[in-house]
């Protein structure tokens, strides 16, 4: 994996963790471990409304505009990082 994508992935994971407020979880067994293969819907139990809120966070954090339909079709953290990286590449 290239360094750029790796960096974006790490930042994305921190955005998701902040969004999910995982640091506040008291039940440690319920604390999700997020990596590139994590499915944000199945593994993190993010619902469709929350996914839209998360999308807004991603736009803000990475300073990009995403296509909602395209982004919502991505399920895994790695796929989303890849999508963000492509948008950032097309901007530069």
């Amino acid at each position: 994996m290239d360094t750029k994508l790796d960096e974006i992935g790490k930042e994305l994971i921190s955005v998701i963790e902040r969004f999910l407020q995982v640091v506040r979880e008291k039940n440690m067994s319920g604390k999700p471990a997020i990596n590139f293969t994590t499915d944000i819907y199945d593994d993190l139990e993010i619902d469709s409304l929350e996914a839209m809120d998360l999308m807004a966070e991603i736009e803000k954090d990475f300073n990009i505009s995403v296509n909602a339909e395209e982004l919502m079709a991505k399920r895994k953290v790695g796929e989303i990082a890849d999508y963000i990286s492509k948008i950032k590449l097309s901007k530069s």
Partner: protein
Amino acid sequence: MTRRVVVTGMGVLAPNGKGIQAFTDAIFAGKSGIGPITRFDPSTLDIKIAAEVKNFDAADYMPIAVVRKTDRFAQFGVAAAKMALDDAHLAEGNNDLAKAAVIIGSGLGGLNFHEEMMFTLLETSNPKKVAASSVPRISPNAVSAYIALQYKIKGPNQVISTACSSSAQAIGEAFHKVRNGKVDIAITGGVEATISLVNMALYQAMMVLGTPVDGNLETASRPFDKTRNGFVMGEGAACLVLEEMNHALTRGATIYAEVAGFGSNCGAYHMVAPDPTGEDAKEAMQEALNDAELRVEDIDYISAHGTSTKFNDLAETKAIKSLAGKRAFDIPVSSIKSMIGHTIGASGALQAVAGCLSVTHNCIPPTINLYNPDEECDLDYVPNKARKKDVNVVMSNSFGFGSNNASLVFIKPPKKT
């Protein structure tokens, strides 16, 4: 045979105590929960005091996945329901709990998040910045829905919103649902998370909020005192588990009190002001007594709505006198709002819990900050110090904007045989 309804679990988040034990200690010690506003910067307000629930971490009571999707008011409800269900030893998976009713009172719903989104929109001038998940956070029935979701409770699920009488109405409806055989168990009570900039500004504008005397913030709420000048905004929640008596006895549940009567009406007098004669409030109290098949002579304690406004406390005093005649002067009447402020839609539920605790402990919580008698408020308001007394019958009053009146009657449960 008439089904009887008992209270088998209670949970409370009050400004002067979280949990039943802390709340019990606080109300009988006359402990105030009023202080400076800390939830936001109140510097632009004239009124900078409130009764806040301190050190509440929603994650102590529910998964973080629920915490992040909910407004403070719904979190209060889920937390209080958890405490009440734990107290009643009812857990998810219990077949009867799965069929229970959830009926909660809230006057204002998810106003904190609503406000946050309004500010976001104002600051950005971009409607797209409003969170997609806003509506289910703000909706008043988020509270009853999340309680049901957490415990998989599939019976009737309602939120009743009648301003300051919301939770008394909710408890009354839940009581009748159990008594009428619709359900064997009901989770009921009330919630309100009122301490936000806009909400404080709204009530400040109505000029209904009280101010302290001599700089002591805790004196701002002084029901029935001659110098009273308004209520203190409070936040909180209380939940009660109501259960058909035989159902409770069969499973060996601890019983706090029996719910015996409920009366409710609308005085159709004014949207905000109480009818100064108190006759509508009296009718609600009389109906609750009739429902309980009790007489005025049976009342040991009246837990007053007692907001600390000029008009409410006077009208309520008149209502009690109209109901009880000469005996009114022999009935202890007190207002826990002197300690916890006015928690709006949660106030009836907090009073209900306090009423049940009175029955359990044979003790009457005081009206604190009552040092200057008002000639027109001339009943026994249990000033400043709790009173030990046999308490078999408690009447609890809640009166809301819109001339909305509700009274509940709690009695000592039958002795175990």
